[in-house]
């Protein structure tokens, strides 16, 4: 009962924050609302007992991406260009997509149902054998770094590529500008 109340409360706050982030005209306020959204989302993950995901959400969504977004705002200005509050074609697209998605959730298994298809494939093996096979108590880490090691390798490569791309683009552009001035 208490968990249900907490979940409803968190989800209500999430919806309010999301609407606020879209409705507010100041981009700085929108960025900060998105940071709050991430922190609330982290609490939802904790409530779903997914602490590793909650950790990532809080560190990345609430921390780093907020800083980077604010840095970006310095370039593009902190006021959104005035636009009508409701853009009807987009509103129609959002409502239709949302309705389809909600219709899709009707077929989803109940939350935490052990008979649900995703819990029938490899997950039982990980839960039962991760400790004896890897001696790593947190089997989320065992799955990420060992059973799914290729995925994590290429995720790291994606982050690396992002850093490399930024160095080449921004630092390269600066070097070219300096070259031209000479």
């Amino acid at each position: 009962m208490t968990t249900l109340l907490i979940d409803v409360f968190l989800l209500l706050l999430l919806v309010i924050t999301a609407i606020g982030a879209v409705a507010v005209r100041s981009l700085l306020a929108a960025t900060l609302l998105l940071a709050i959204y991430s922190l609330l989302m982290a609490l939802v993950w904790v409530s779903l007992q997914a602490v590793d995901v909650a950790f990532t959400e809080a560190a990345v969504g609430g921390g780093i991406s907020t800083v980077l977004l604010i840095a970006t705002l310095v370039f593009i200005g902190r006021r959104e260009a005035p636009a009508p509050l409701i853009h009807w074609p987009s509103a129609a697209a959002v409502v239709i997509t949302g309705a389809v998605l909600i219709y899709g959730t009707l077929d989803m298994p109940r939350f935490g149902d052990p008979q649900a298809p995703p819990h029938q494939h490899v997950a039982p093996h990980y839960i039962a054998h991760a400790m004896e096979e890897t001696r790593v108590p947190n089997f989320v880490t065992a799955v990420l770094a060992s059973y799914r090691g290729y995925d994590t390798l290429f995720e790291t490569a994606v982050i690396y590529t992002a850093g490399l791309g930024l160095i080449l683009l921004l630092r390269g552009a600066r070097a070219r500008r300096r070259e031209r001035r000479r």
Partner: protein
Amino acid sequence: MNEQVLIRVMVQLLVPFIFLFGVYVIMHGELGPGGGFQGGVILAAGYILYALVHGTDAGKRAFPTRLSDALNSVGVLIYGGVGMATVLLGGAYLDYDMLNPADPPAGQTLGIILVEIGVGITVSAVMITLFNELARAVRR
């Protein structure tokens, strides 16, 4: 400058503990929540906090750009290197069992810790690079 004394002192006190926590999260990813990604982001957050308060020049003096550029690749190299090591030891790519054939689970633990360290290094270096490059672009 005067009103910043409190912030400067607090940051000076906080940053070492943030770094310590980041390293802890990376090293204890196999025991509790967290891992290379989260720990790397926390390390970067410590640097960004320092650079925000003391200025990006001070940040670069403490952690030179050449070093962060190099560490970008070092993390991925560690991860890929562990994979190559297991191949050279006669296994499949990233088959950590080969790191300790006599006791495969111990090899798995070692491999997982090594790749988490690799992920942590790359993630923190890339986040610091992102911040530095954006900050430098903003200043012009």
